[in-house]
């Protein structure tokens, strides 16, 4: 019986020596194709506990992430914002490729938790409440930025970050940049390009560039000539002092005769 055992050991070791470089190469290919990107470190072990970490290691990290998502939903119903933030950290570490997790987590932090913080009288003075509100904005931005780093091949989180920068930070220049990045993806919706131009038109010092983009969109035809585009274009034409003859949007009588 010794000979077959030796034969099996030799077979397994030889097969191991043959497959290790292949497996290493296939693993690299998996990572390049955005598979197996979750970083299951010791920090996660502390957050998940023994059983959850074991389950995540054994190929059930998506199920563990879903269970935590349901927990986060319950925390939301109870308005436990701090607990939600901690759960979102774990969930997005487990499933960094699920756009919905980054998107919803950022939305909860920047829109829901921030409003709750501003209205939370237990925080005391208004200055403190505004500070807490801004901290939740920052949390939302951080989630979206990390989401983008984990999903560089997708446009959705650029759009969400642009929305956050526009509506919460009122940073129209940065929002225009994010919308433009989203628009650069082949599968991005057509409105991303429009939104990028709208935000650029609100960015001080970028009037000329915004005018050119808006005019280019206008020239694409009726489909692009939407009310917001017309009003932004008219505004840029006015700001830049475009001669009446060259204007795409005719000036209203009230504007020409102040």
């Amino acid at each position, binding site marked *: *019986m010794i*000979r*077959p*055992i030796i*034969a*099996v050991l030799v*077979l*397994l*070791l030889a*097969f*191991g*020596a043959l*497959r*290790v470089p*292949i*497996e*290493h190469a*296939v*693993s690299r*290919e*998996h990572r390049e*194709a*955005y*598979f*197996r*990107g*979750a970083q299951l470190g010791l920090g996660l072990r502390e957050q998940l506990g023994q059983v959850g970490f*074991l389950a995540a*290691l*054994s*190929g*059930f*990290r*998506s*199920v563990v*992430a*879903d269970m935590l*998502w*349901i927990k986060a*939903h319950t925390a939301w119903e109870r308005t436990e914002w701090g607990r939600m933030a901690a759960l979102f950290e774990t969930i997005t570490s487990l*499933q960094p*490729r*699920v*756009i*919905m997790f980054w998107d*919803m987590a950022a939305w909860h932090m920047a829109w829901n938790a921030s409003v709750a913080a501003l209205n939370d009288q237990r925080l005391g003075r208004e200055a403190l409440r505004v500070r807490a509100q801004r901290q939740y904005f920052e949390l939302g931005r951080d989630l979206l930025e990390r989401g983008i780093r984990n999903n560089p091949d*997708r446009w959705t989180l650029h759009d969400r970050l642009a929305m956050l920068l526009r509506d919460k930070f009122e940073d129209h220049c940065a929002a225009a940049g994010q919308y433009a990045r989203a628009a650069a993806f082949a599968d991005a919706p057509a409105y991303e390009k429009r939104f990028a131009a709208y935000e650029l038109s609100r960015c001080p010092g970028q009037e000329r560039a915004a005018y050119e983009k808006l005019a280019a969109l206008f020239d694409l035809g009726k489909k692009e000539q939407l009310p917001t585009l017309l009003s932004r274009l008219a505004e840029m034409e006015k700001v830049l002092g475009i001669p009446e003859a060259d204007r795409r949007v005719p000036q209203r009588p009230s504007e020409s005769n102040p």
Partner: protein
Amino acid sequence: MNAAPDPAAPPSHPAHRGFSPSRIAAIARNTLTELIRLKVFYFLLLFALLIIGNSAFMLRFSFQEEFQVLKDVSLGAMSIFTSLLAIVATAMLLPKDVEDRTLYTILAKPVPRFEYLAGKLGGVLVLLFIATLLMSVLFVAVLFIREKWVIAEILREAGGTPNEQALEMIANVKKSAFSGALVPGIAIIYLKACLLSALTLFVSTFASSSIFTIIVVVAVYFVGHLQATAREYWLAAGANVSWITKGFLAMVSLIFPDLQMFNLVDDIVAGNDIALGLFLRTSGLGLLYVGVYLLAAHFIFSAKEL
């Protein structure tokens, strides 16, 4: 002129072949029948309850959340059920045949031991294929029903004539529900179960009982999911890592299978598409594992005194 047959000559039989796929198929068929008689498909009821219950529970969430959780839970359940079925069904094969004396009856005939093992494994692989197929059909059916339900709700809210926003929502629902990329994901779940089955067969050739086999394979299952970490650390280890650590990591990498390789479905559900070449390379590795474990089982089993 034809010569008359010699009545004294022995009756002519087809020559016995050293390797016969039809003998393997016969053993596989019998194995499959035996396993089906053990009512192994009852677990499908549990699977159905799990996904229908999950679908009902997730009604209060948004449709994106609902479909995400439904797909994750269904595919996770599919993975655990096929893995368990592969381990438990295969671990029982050899001890049961020894206990029933069927093994001696078969091997007393001119059936090579390799064909016996290949037939047994073949039976389990067919069983796993049927189980995976049935679970997939159930999963797709629940996903399809929920998709239609959500779309009908959107249309009802839009008053029957969908506007641009409703049409975009319907497109999003369709995108969140079933996608063709799930098919290679399910195929990889099946391959992982095949690998575990071949590994279990190998362990059962030298194990003293089914329980021992199951425990060993479950341990290998957990170590196998960490093999990639050990391998990467081993390959990247510099001079400051002791030779004992390096040796240990090398042994783990060389002996244990990399089961993380077959956990692609999490990312497929997240919207990743798997390229055909990558799918074929991953599948090829899985099939190679099955072949090597079958060969290893043959080495031990052929030298075993029965």
